[in-house]
């Protein structure tokens, strides 16, 4: 077991190292920040001083080693634009993104599972077919366009919901959250629904397929033969069993929700990490771009690592196969 975990840890570190190389060199080879960030009216001395202050006078590979050394100590550089540590900027915006992602996850489960189970119980009914058709649309419509249409409908035409920002926030344990105030909830609903649509479609499909499979199992037949109400059979016996694949997949999809929040945050002007990275790419704020990409890669590798290890705990075949290779 420990051999398996050590191997996986080494692989994960290797991936992060390769990504850091790729991202750092890629970002730093393209575009010249000196032209963008330094006032063209500066004298030659002022210019030199500014380049030194930003650390741009060193050869590129030395810049990388400085970056790597600092990164291990939690210092991912200072934003050219804000003049603040890049890590601090990102961490400040992280709660907003995580709030959005978890709200979307919550919505996709609460809406997706009942719809999926219903479609699974009545696959040939009109409602069941409509649900499946809607889930296909949810898969193929681009998130950003659905977001725009939601703004058009609910904010501009009907005027029910606000279209931008987070609204009133409350501080809980030093973190600002929107979902505890009425105004914040109103602001949160549309972006969360927008982000949730894709995952909702996925949950609907998983729940439908699971329900159809489980309904033919012996234990369901037995439960019905025992004379249990249909309600109890569905809510207890079926639901429990379809939750396994749904929970597994959603755990894996959490990372992709955070990545996709880039789009939703831009549409709804939600002040999270995604909005920051898009602004930073356009402003060529390299330290923030590099820091964001490193953090998100780190998050992904960690999620994958945890899932791998959990799987190997649950299913010994996985780690045995890995050792044989």
């Amino acid at each position, binding site marked *: 077991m420990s051999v398996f975990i050590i191997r996986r840890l080494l692989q994960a570190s290797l991936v992060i190292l390769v990504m850091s190389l790729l991202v750092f060199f890629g970002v730093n080879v393209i*575009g010249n920040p000196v032209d963008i960030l330094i006032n063209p009216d500066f004298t030659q001395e002022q210019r030199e001083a500014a380049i030194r202050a930003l650390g741009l006078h060193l050869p590129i590979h030395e810049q990388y080693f400085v970056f790597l050394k600092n990164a291990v100590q939690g210092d991912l550089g200072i934003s050219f634009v804000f003049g603040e540590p890049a890590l601090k900027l990102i961490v400040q915006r992280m709660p907003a993104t995580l709030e959005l992602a978890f709200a979307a996850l919550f919505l996709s489960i609460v809406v997706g599972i009942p719809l999926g189970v219903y479609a699974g119980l009545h696959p040939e009914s009109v409602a069941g077919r409509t649900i499946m058709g809607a889930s296909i649309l949810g898969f193929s419509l*681009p998130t950003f366009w659905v977001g*725009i249409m939601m703004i058009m409908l609910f904010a*501009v035409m009907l005027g029910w919901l606000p279209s931008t920002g987070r609204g009133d926030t409350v501080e809980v344990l030093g973190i600002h959250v929107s979902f505890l105030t009425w105004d914040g909830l109103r602001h949160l609903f549309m972006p969360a629904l927008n982000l949730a649509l894709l995952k909702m479609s996925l949950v609907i499909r998983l729940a439908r397929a699971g329900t159809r499979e489980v309904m033919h199992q012996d234990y369901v037949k037995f439960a019905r033969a025992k004379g249990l109400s249909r309600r109890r059979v569905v809510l207890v016996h079926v639901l429990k069993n379809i939750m396994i694949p749904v929970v597994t997949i959603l755990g894996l999809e959490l990372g992709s929700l955070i*990545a996709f929040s*880039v*789009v939703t945050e831009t549409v709804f002007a939600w002040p999270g990490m995604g909005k920051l990275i*898009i602004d930073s790419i356009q402003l060529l704020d390299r330290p923030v771009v590099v820091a964001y990409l490193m953090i998100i*890669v780190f998050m992904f590798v960690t999620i994958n690592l945890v899932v791998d290890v959990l799987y190997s705990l649950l299913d010994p075949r996985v780690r045995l196969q890995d050792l044989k290779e």
Partner: protein
Amino acid sequence: MSPADTKMVGTKMADVSTGIPPERASPATAVETPFRRFLSDYTESPVAVVAFVALVLILLIAIFAPVISPQNPYDLAVIDIMDSRLAPGETNFAGDMTYVLGTDDQGRDMLSAIFYGLRISLGVGVASGVIALSLGLVIGLTAAYFGGKVDTLIMRTVDLQLSFPAILVALILVAVLGRGVDKIIIALVVVQWAYYTRTVRASALVERRKEYVEAATCLGLGTRHILFRHMLPNVLPPLIVVGTVQVAHAIALEATLSFLGIGLPITEPSLGLLISNGFDYMLSGKYWISFFPGVALLITIVTINLVGDRLRDVLNPRLQK
């Protein structure tokens, strides 16, 4: 063996693999060519036929955009700032032209802008799809044919890439490469190649164990010949299905990146850029600048997906009657 003989063996092999040797077919079933069977299977679904016709129309619009557009939206001599932000159906300032879908903030006819945008969106989507498909084909066949370490290395890379969502991979590449048509195509190719490679490898592994490959090997044909002349035609069907779906994905992804302002440059106004352009006017109720390009994008993506879905059903041998 002369090159001519080799060629003949190759074509014979291909015939056998379709399951209908022409010399053995009886006169009654002679008309039942694979293509005809495919055609009659496909047309069984009316939705798929409508989707196919719509797709052909969209392609024609994209190809002939300069001919059929009411105006050239990027010719500064024909657009008039007095016509800016007109609602759909209004006539222009000079009074000789009706803007069916309204105009944008520069006074461009939206219908023409959408036709031109379709051209760019489809062009980028198809170009990246074709490059990614060719790349995936070569890499996937190589992995399947050689197996062992080569296979492990390629498939580990594929797995690694597929564990990251497409939007994140594209974001990293755009941040690294910068903007530009060529760079967006590169980003889309990198996002897609892994899907093609995985598909090709999976079906090539099945094909490799079949007798015709063994026969070709016994005939002493070269590796490259077996890979590209014998195995390639047989791994194409699943690849076509993945290809159609991937092109729809590529178009959606390009539109998303362009909407975010990190996709195509302003000189190449794709549908995503048109939508992004109109987004600023959305809150003041001028919905049409964003809405109609979005509808065009939507129809394109949905029709491609519908055609792809039907192709998957028709080309899947397990579902064959």
